[in-house]
């Protein structure tokens, strides 16, 4: 057991820090062209798709260096490394794992260059947690599939260029997990209609997506026909582990501590209140647990030992922390805590109030807490399915 990094890894960390010191001005000083320039620079460094194969433009970096990169980026509160979060987090890895050589050439570079945005078409109105029961139909006609059906909660659909779409090609199956086929579909295909849905925070990020006789060439199928569930499983595991990443949580804890330090309740410093201090201790313990769980699981991967469904552990922690930390900040600051950005009375510009309405993306997205508990109970503890 050791927590030391090799000289190469330390040099890499230093390189990341130097880069950030040079290229990441404080938010207030970031001008109009900043984001485009930033994306260009991190791409030049081959830090986008850090561990992806070199032949498709990835960085071919080690898992450990990838962890270092993520940690340093989060500490510096750097912006994302690309515009397509889903492309980088699971569509790209899915194509690398299951795609044909041609698909990799075609899709991977565009994801890395932030040229295309991806969205994920899994959930349907009647099939959310029970995802394997999806009904959106894809019928093989000659050299293409004809898709009919509806997806919902599709984040980013209003501006996405492509969708990774889960369809059913067979309806008479013994197990509902069979007969599912995964297609990569351009969002401007004739027959696709997107209707944005407003969420409780007032954003319109997700949408209903309707498919009417949408033609998709067979060459756009990811993985084998009828075997799309395997693709989904690996994508969902990637989604869960990205939600379970601890890196941003330390920055959030620091912000929360700063809030406590600057807050008085009934004329007394909140930082002296044992109940407040205890809560912060609890948050820190959970966050530290996420960190060291993550390092234990990373070690397993580095040793080539199989990971089971352990990613659900940190997903559950992240879900509860996300709700509890925002909620704590809002309650701590009384009526000022419920003021939104724009209010003269808002705390920290209203960010806590705002993010206290944002938790469903990490709590419900990627599978609800109950579903994570089912996964742990059934796949790790071997309890019967319900």
């Amino acid at each position, binding site marked *: *057991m050791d927590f030391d990094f090799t000289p190469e890894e330390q040099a890499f960390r230093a390189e990341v820090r130097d880069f950030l010191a040079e290229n990441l001005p404080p938010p207030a000083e970031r001008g109009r062209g900043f984001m485009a320039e930033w994306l260009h620079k991190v791409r030049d460094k081959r830090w986008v798709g850090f561990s992806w194969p070199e032949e498709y433009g990835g960085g071919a970096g080690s898992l450990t260096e990838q962890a270092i990169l993520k940690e340093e980026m989060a500490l510096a509160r750097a912006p994302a490394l690309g515009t397509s979060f889903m492309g980088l987090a699971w569509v790209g890895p899915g194509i690398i794992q299951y795609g044909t050589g041609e698909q990799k050439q075609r899709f991977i570079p565009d994801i890395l260059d932030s040229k295309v945005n991806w969205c994920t078409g899994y959930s349907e109105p009647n099939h959310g947690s029970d995802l394997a029961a999806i009904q959106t139909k894809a019928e093989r006609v000659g050299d293409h599939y004809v898709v009919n059906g509806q997806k919902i909660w599709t984040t980013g659909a209003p501006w996405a260029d492509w969708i990774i779409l889960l369809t059913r090609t067979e309806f008479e199956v013994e197990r509902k997990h069979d007969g599912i086929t995964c297609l990569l579909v351009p969002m401007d295909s004739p027959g696709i209609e997107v209707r944005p849905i407003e969420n409780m925070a007032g954003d319109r990020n997700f949408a209903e997506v309707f498919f009417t006789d949408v033609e998709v060439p067979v060459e756009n199928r990811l993985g084998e026909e009828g075997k799309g569930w395997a693709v989904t499983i690996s994508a969902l595991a990637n989604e869960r582990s990205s939600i379970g990443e601890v890196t941003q949580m330390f920055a959030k804890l620091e912000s929360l501590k700063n809030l406590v330090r600057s807050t008085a309740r009934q004329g007394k410093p909140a930082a002296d209140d044992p109940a407040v201090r205890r809560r912060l*201790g609890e948050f820190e313990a959970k966050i530290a647990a996420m960190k060291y769980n993550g390092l234990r699981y990373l070690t397993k991967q580095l040793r080539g030992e199989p990971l089971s469904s352990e990613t659900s552990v940190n997903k559950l922690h992240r879900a509860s922390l996300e709700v509890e930390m925002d909620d704590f900040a809002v309650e701590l600051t009384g009526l000022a805590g419920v003021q939104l950005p724009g209010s003269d009375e808002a705390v920290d510009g209203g960010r806590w109030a705002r993010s206290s309405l944002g938790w469903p993306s990490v709590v419900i997205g990627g599978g609800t807490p109950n579903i994570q508990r089912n996964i*742990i109970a059934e796949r790790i*503890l071997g*309890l019967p399915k319900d």
Partner: protein
Amino acid sequence: MDFGFSEEQNLLREQVLRFMTDACPLSVVRTQNGGLPRELWQQAADLGWLALIVPEAHGGVGLKWIDLAVVLEESGRGLSPLPIVSQALAATAIRRSASDDVKGEWLPRIAAGEAVFGIGLFDDPTWIDAEGIRLASGPKLTGAKPFVSDAAAATHLLLATRTGEDLHLAIVEASDAGLSAQPGIDRTKPFGTATLDGVAPQAAFPISTDDLAFLTDCGAVAVTLEAIGAAEAVLSLTTEYAKNRIQFDNPIGKYQGVKHRLADMFVDIESFKSLAYYAAWAIDDAPDELPRAASLAKAYASDAFAGIGVDGVGLHGAIGFTAEYDAQLYLKRSKWVRSAFGDADYHYQRAASLGGL
């Protein structure tokens, strides 16, 4: 970066597990009543476990707490009644704070298991701090020291004393210490009260408040490591029961009220395990980080294991409440762990201070 155990550590783990299954199963644990099980103790000594963290120069193996962690986790799994934690804390205190003479005399005896140590640090049951120490230092000790761990098993006691601001640790012969055993919830973690009447210590040495905190942190980490094994034992006992007990035509483990609680136990155990391994590693390799790491681990484990202890009994129904069934033994350990070396509230408050509040 490698946050996993080595092959040697895994072999050691298997060795302890085998010992606990073959020589010291719960049927044996149940027969213990606070005294030292001589034969088992001798085996533990022969296997080198008592010498693990004693420096080689003093007859030890010269390994680290993270190696001992494996022993504690597995002996905790079987609720071992051997006073390995007290022995390790005595070794740690002497290794860190005593003179070379004291080290030369006592560390080899500890490593060989010939001296068996009980520990009495704090006179106050809720105060894990220098202020909680009252017994007066001096060439002869007079007064009471409650909460001496493993008192009935010990040949020697390591007792904390004070004069004004100065703290000392004194080694006294157990048979001179006027010990009386005190019944407690967890019979595998027995305490006694020493009533000293002009007892001359065999050795005494000053200890700084920092070193005292270090020792307490080692204690907190040690009982948390034992709690990992114990909590996993509850989870596995209860999971097996849930797979086999049929109610309403189904195994009860099919019902989410049961299976989700078991999943949450898994999440908690995974988490305080990660925190405790890190803290155990920090003892020797990053002592500056130990206070925070120990507090986070002990705080998390204290409440989580207490909940696991209660629900481990509850999820069994009435059978869990019977003396014959083993779940109750773990519930008792969980209550003991909660208070030992600082409870969750103490450690969360401390973590907040160490974190800059």
